[in-house]
């Protein structure tokens, strides 16, 4: 294979690729992101391959294995072009019919179409699905179009055009100005202006500088970085190359969670391909600029998502944060100036260069520009990745894109920003989502986790859950985080077990303020957020646990009891069979009895009962 030696050669290759793309020819994209793969997408792929091979078809069908389309709830997803026909929950055995009916005879298969949960109408094309309609998919949109392992696919949709532009027309200074003007802020959560970060590294003295991509996405309930790396790795790589050009760095690193094997694999392939084609390595596209990227796999420590801990980990040390009176932009990796940005930030860079800072700054709110990707999960109908302009309200996100709460239940709150964020109650659902507004509400943007809770979620239990996570992941270097978290967790454990006292709530607030003031890194300063926000917005629920020894949501095991509703029970015997402790007795077709002394409160009976006869009090 020949290295591309100049920007003109790259443009020529792109033109050839675009002209080869015959859009009339049917092509099928199959989502093979982690969610769809887990639901059986790989079987669907092999079924397509087998059918195409075995049945000498008169038409030429191209199948494309793509990264995550975002709508994980309905996976495996298959999109058929031309026509943008959208099939969901496709199984191995459906493939033959898809080929025969849809591809050959151009007929739709009714049962594979998506049914809108609100209108109950069937939707034919991907564009019409309400989940996608309100989104602005700048970063995620191409995931469904390209094969992430194929560089030609990325070039075909205009990939590396921004790099070309930068090398031909722009000085490093101009690149930094453009990013500054765009108003792009760090997508890792804190929201530091990216252009200013680059500028201070540009100004810092030193002949060796580094750029780092932070892909240590550790927040539970977040998977957007993973989806971009799996589905469109070249967009991140292109952003890193442009950033390296701007600050004059020769070496980059990407720090990826080892728990994301597909992301590691696809990014490694992207690096190799880019090197082969002269887009990475010595003299990129024939210019005097050289830059290369290495992959570092994380060791499974949440704290390594923090910049200084991440840098320590790349240096081969334990990932402990350090105090940041000296910024990484001046003294970072190996004490050299370092620019560290999140996956989404890097992936946004080529878009800004290509379409201009002005275009980008027109999207979003006054201080938060562009789009943000949220992982919409929890008790919501449409679980998946959602990319929306900054400033959209929580209500639109949960009810219009997310399709509301399953089972006709009521929404209680939304947890944004993962374990470091806060709980936003139903009454604040009109809150526009941007960096400032979320902080005002006591939460934060974080990495974009968004967990929806319904009336059956106990906020005290949730706060306890988050705190047990951050406490477990605390590296132990500074005392406020290590000991404060531990004490606060033990208080919350007591409350959920019915051993809490009212004065505990003051103690929680006191510990929280010390943790906020005294912790070394954001893990410790943000850890009390879920506790403080739930305490602020749901004080009655805490008091119910403490005073009445009741868990209103019916979650905390020590405070609930299961009962059998004698009216509703028809004695079908399902609960009796599954009960592991033989607490349920009764004769067939007669209402059953539950022995409280034997009940271990595992909840197995509620799962199998079809008559809503198991009550939780």
């Amino acid at each position, binding site marked *: 294979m020949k290295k591309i030696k100049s920007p003109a050669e790259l443009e020529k290759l792109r033109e050839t690729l675009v002209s080869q793309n015959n859009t009339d020819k049917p092509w099928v994209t199959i989502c093979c992101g*982690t*969610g769809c*793969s*887990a*639901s059986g997408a790989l079987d669907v792929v092999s079924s397509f391959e087998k059918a195409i091979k075995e049945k000498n078809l008169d038409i030429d069908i191209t199948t494309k294995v793509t990264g995550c389309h975002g709508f*994980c*709830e309905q*996976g495996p997803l298959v999109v058929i072009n031309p026509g943008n026909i959208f099939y969901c929950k496709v199984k191995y055995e459906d493939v033959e019919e898809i080929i025969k009916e849809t591809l050959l005879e151009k007929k739709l298969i009714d049962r594979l179409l998506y049914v809108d949960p609100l209108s109950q109408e069937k939707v034919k094309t991907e564009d019409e699905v309400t989940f996608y309609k309100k989104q602005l998919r700048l970063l995620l949109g191409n995931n469904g179009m390209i094969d992430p392992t194929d560089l030609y696919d990325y070039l075909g949709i205009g990939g590396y055009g921004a790099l070309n532009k930068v090398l031909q027309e722009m000085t490093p200074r101009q690149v930094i100005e453009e990013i500054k003007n765009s108003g792009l802020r760090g997508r890792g959560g804190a929201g530091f202006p990216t252009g200013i970060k680059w500028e201070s590294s540009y100004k810092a003295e030193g002949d060796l500088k580094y750029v780092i991509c932070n892909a240590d*996405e*550790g*927040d*539970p*309930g*977040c*998977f957007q970085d*993973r989806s971009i790396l799996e589905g469109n790795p070249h967009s991140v790589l292109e952003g890193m190359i442009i950033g390296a050009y701007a600050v004059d760095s020769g070496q980059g690193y990407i720090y990826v969670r*080892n*728990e*994301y094997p597909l992301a590691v694999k696809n990014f490694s392939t992207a690096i190799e391909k880019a090197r082969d084609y002269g887009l990475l390595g010595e003299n990129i596209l024939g210019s005097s600029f050289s830059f290369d990227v290495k992959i*570092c*796999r*994380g*060791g*499974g*420590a*949440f704290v390594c998502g923090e910049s200084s801990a991440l840098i320590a*980990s790349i*240096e*081969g*040390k*334990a*990932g402990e944060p350090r105090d940041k009176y000296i910024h990484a932009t001046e003294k970072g990796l190996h004490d050299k100036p370092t620019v560290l940005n999140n996956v989404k930030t890097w992936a946004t860079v080529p878009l800004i260069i290509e379409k201009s800072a002005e275009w980008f700054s027109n999207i979003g709110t006054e201080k938060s520009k562009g789009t943000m990707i949220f*992982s919409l*999960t*929890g*008790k919501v109908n449409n*679980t*998946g990745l959602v990319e929306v302009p900054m400033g959209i309200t929580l209500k639109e996100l949960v009810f219009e894109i997310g399709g509301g709460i399953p089972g006709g239940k009521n929404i209680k709150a939304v*947890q944004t920003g*993962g*374990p470091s964020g806060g709980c936003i109650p139903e009454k604040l659902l009109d809150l526009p989502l941007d960096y400032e507004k979320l902080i005002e509400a006591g939460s934060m943007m974080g990495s974009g*986790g968004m*967990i929806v*809770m319904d009336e059956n*979620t106990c906020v005290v239990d*949730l706060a306890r*859950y*988050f705190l047990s*996570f951050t406490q477990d*992941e605390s*590296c132990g270097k500074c005392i406020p985080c290590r000991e404060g978290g531990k004490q606060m967790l033990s208080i919350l454990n007591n409350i959920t077990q019915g051993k809490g006292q009212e004065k505990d709530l003051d103690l929680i607030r006191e510990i929280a303020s010390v943790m906020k003031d005294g912790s070394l890194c954001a893990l410790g300063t943000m850890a009390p957020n879920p506790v403080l926000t739930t305490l602020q917005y749901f004080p009655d629920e805490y008091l119910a646990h403490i005073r009445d020894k009741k868990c209103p949501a019916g979650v905390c095991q020590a405070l609930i009891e299961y009962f059998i509703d004698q009216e509703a029970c028809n004695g079908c015997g399902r609960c009796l069979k*599954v009960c*592991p402790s033989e607490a349920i007795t009764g004769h067939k077709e007669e209402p059953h009895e539950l022995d409280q002394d034997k009940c271990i409160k*595992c*909840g*197995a009976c509620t*799962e*199998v009962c079809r008559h809503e006869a198991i009550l939780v009090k």
Partner: protein
Amino acid sequence: MNVDLGKVDKLIDKYRDEEAAYIPLLQDINSEFRYLPRDALKRVSQKMEVPLSHLFRLATFYKSFSLVPRGEHEIQVCMGTACHVRGAPRVLNKITQQFQIYPGETTADQKFTVETVNCVGACALGPLVVFDGKYFGHLNLSRTDKLLEGYHEENKKSS
């Protein structure tokens, strides 16, 4: 336990020229032996000229390393937030009861290791379990039962 130091040497050679590449090296050793054997760590310490205490610090700091042998089959129960609110604790209870071990432990016959992980990024499928790298989603107690049953059967056949 005897450790094939030849294998360790091969892995060391891979990283010899890299600066401070202890973490990737330990990751490779960990996946080769399913834990970090004492003798392997000593060998790395000698050959890479790094204090054993530093390697021990890394081995105990990062969660992906284990100093005790792990089971042939790995069961990871996702305890991410989305799985948590959808009932992951119940699934975990069921699995640990079945194997009679605590999360993080390995069964006495060295067959199964059960551990909890914080989100595998497949929240639409929660609660879910990763069994030897394969995802099993939408679990409830009876489906968990079925999942484990299947593996017990397979286990019986193979042994």
